[in-house]
């Protein structure tokens, strides 16, 4: 028994194309499945045709919201393979921009949560404050969203004292606003009614499903790549890994808001302790990378981002692979929707779906079937058409 309801690919709750297949009995969801193939563009394959430097600009466009995380991860990976290390000042500047991007992403998410639960005035307020962060991004990097700030060997622009002062004063102002939003999420009855005990994911389940990022941290798992495997200068900049034990959508909102405050502190500390010096080591525009494999991990706003590169010694990657945080969290999402021990109502689906901060353009995956549609092709089969 039960009726199948397709949610998507075009749906008011999310502009991105994703299909949630829900099986419902009355008001309750009994089964769920996800199809995230609609925006698959084939970026990993296209990277094989680009030089390592051109690849950087394509990798940034995997995801518009976490583009800084992607470009940080890519440059770290290529720098490891090349044996180049960015100067310390550049690493601090990368951290500043990474944390600014985290603030902007989390505030965007908070606005979308407000939109999902029908709290339009909170949506408008959060988006108004988010514009301040985007202004800082524009002044610091030259663009509001897709910044192209990181390059192999360092960063593109330096920060001057006047801009540093503006960053500080804007963030101080923002801190007050975010504290107000934290209080609002803690106390506002309409936010609590829609999020508390919605989308339960217990700690053991989150561990088993390998949830990452704020989803895992709201289930009490103290895991953050910045703390567990420090990559830029995260071992020098102190910060707290925010965890909560509430295991629900409300907890995920609180974790993200607290992380915004942590990020503000991290940027302030970085600006205090940033050393002087060069911001970039010159690397020629077309360079060959020695044969070998490399990985890099970065804590993107949505969780752990993982890049793998394989070089055959040429000026183009042989294989590039990305594992994005939303892909890791989709399993948790499906589990949250179809868990048998608690009732999940159709009206809560947007909030549960939104609570993992889905970013489908990162996540789009497809199977390639052979002509009869009977067999899923693997990498070796596809390699035959590689042409190199």
């Amino acid at each position: 028994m039960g009726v199948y309801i397709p949610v998507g690919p075009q749906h008011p709750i999310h502009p991105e194309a994703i299909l949630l297949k829900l099986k419902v009995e009355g008001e309750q969801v009994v089964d769920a499945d996800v199809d995230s193939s609609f925006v698959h563009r084939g970026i990993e394959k296209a990277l094989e045709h680009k030089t390592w430097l051109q690849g950087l600009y394509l990798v940034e466009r995997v995801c518009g919201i976490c583009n800084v995380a992607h470009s940080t991860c890519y440059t770290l990976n290529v720098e490891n393979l090349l044996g180049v290390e960015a100067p310390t000042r550049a690493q601090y500047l990368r951290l500043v921009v990474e944390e600014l991007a985290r603030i902007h992403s989390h505030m965007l998410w908070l606005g979308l949560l407000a939109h999902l639960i029908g709290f339009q005035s909170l949506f408008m307020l959060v988006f108004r404050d988010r514009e301040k962060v985007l202004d800082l991004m524009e002044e610091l990097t030259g663009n509001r969203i897709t910044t192209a700030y990181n390059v192999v060997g360092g960063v593109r622009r330096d920060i001057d004292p006047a801009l540093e002062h503006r960053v500080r004063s804007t963030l101080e102002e923002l801190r007050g606003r975010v504290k107000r939003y934290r209080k609002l999420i803690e106390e506002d009855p309409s936010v609590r009614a829609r999020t508390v005990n919605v989308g339960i994911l217990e700690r053991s389940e989150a561990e088993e499903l390998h949830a990452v990022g704020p989803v895992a941290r709201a289930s009490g798992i103290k895991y953050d790549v910045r703390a567990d495997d420090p990559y830029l200068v995260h071992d020098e900049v102190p910060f707290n890994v925010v965890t909560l034990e509430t295991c629900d959508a409300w907890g995920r909102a609180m974790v993200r808001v607290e992380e915004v405050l942590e990020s503000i502190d991290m940027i302030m500390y970085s600006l205090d302790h940033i050393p002087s010096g060069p911001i970039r080591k010159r690397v020629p525009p077309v360079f060959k990378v020695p044969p070998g494999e490399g990985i890099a991990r970065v804590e993107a706003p949505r969780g752990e981002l993982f890049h793998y590169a394989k070089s055959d010694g040429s000026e183009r990657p042989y294989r590039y692979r990305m594992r994005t945080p939303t892909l890791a969290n989709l399993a948790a999402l499906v589990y949250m929707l179809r868990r048998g021990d608690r009732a999940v109502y159709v009206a809560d689906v947007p909030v549960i779906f939104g609570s993992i901060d889905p970013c489908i353009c990162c996540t789009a995956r497809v199977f390639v079937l052979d002509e009869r549609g009977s067999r899923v092709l693997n990498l070796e089969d596809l390699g035959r058409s590689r042409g190199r």
Partner: protein
Amino acid sequence: MKLLTRLVNWGRSRSLWVLLINTGACNACDIEVIAALSPRYDVERFGVLLKGSPRHADVLLITGAVTRQVRDRLLRIYRQMPEPKYVVAVGTCAVSGGVYDRCYNVYKGVDEVLPVHAYVPGCPVKPEAVIEAISVLRRVIERGEFNGRGKGG
């Protein structure tokens, strides 16, 4: 042009309800379009309203190069929209394929699939550019032009 037609066109140009759809963009254009609806840019002062259903929408804002997987769904959404309908290609990849030029799974621009009335270049577009596109579209509608450029529809 008859007075009544001019009046109708004037009315249409001042209440554009838009539907935002991502057909393979990287989300950056989507969040910039949403930012254009937020208090600082506030396109609602031009009568623009973001709608959730194609049946309520006059304008289709398409972000992203159209992927093969999403093409049929996009056409279906387009057919669900009531006449007269307008299409805006938002972002460089919706205009020409942009950075996804050599990807095996994308069309080079929305106008390979649908007729387009306004192009907004930029990677990502700025909210100001979205406002500019809307004001261009208003002039186009006031003049009573309905045919976009490109195939299909």
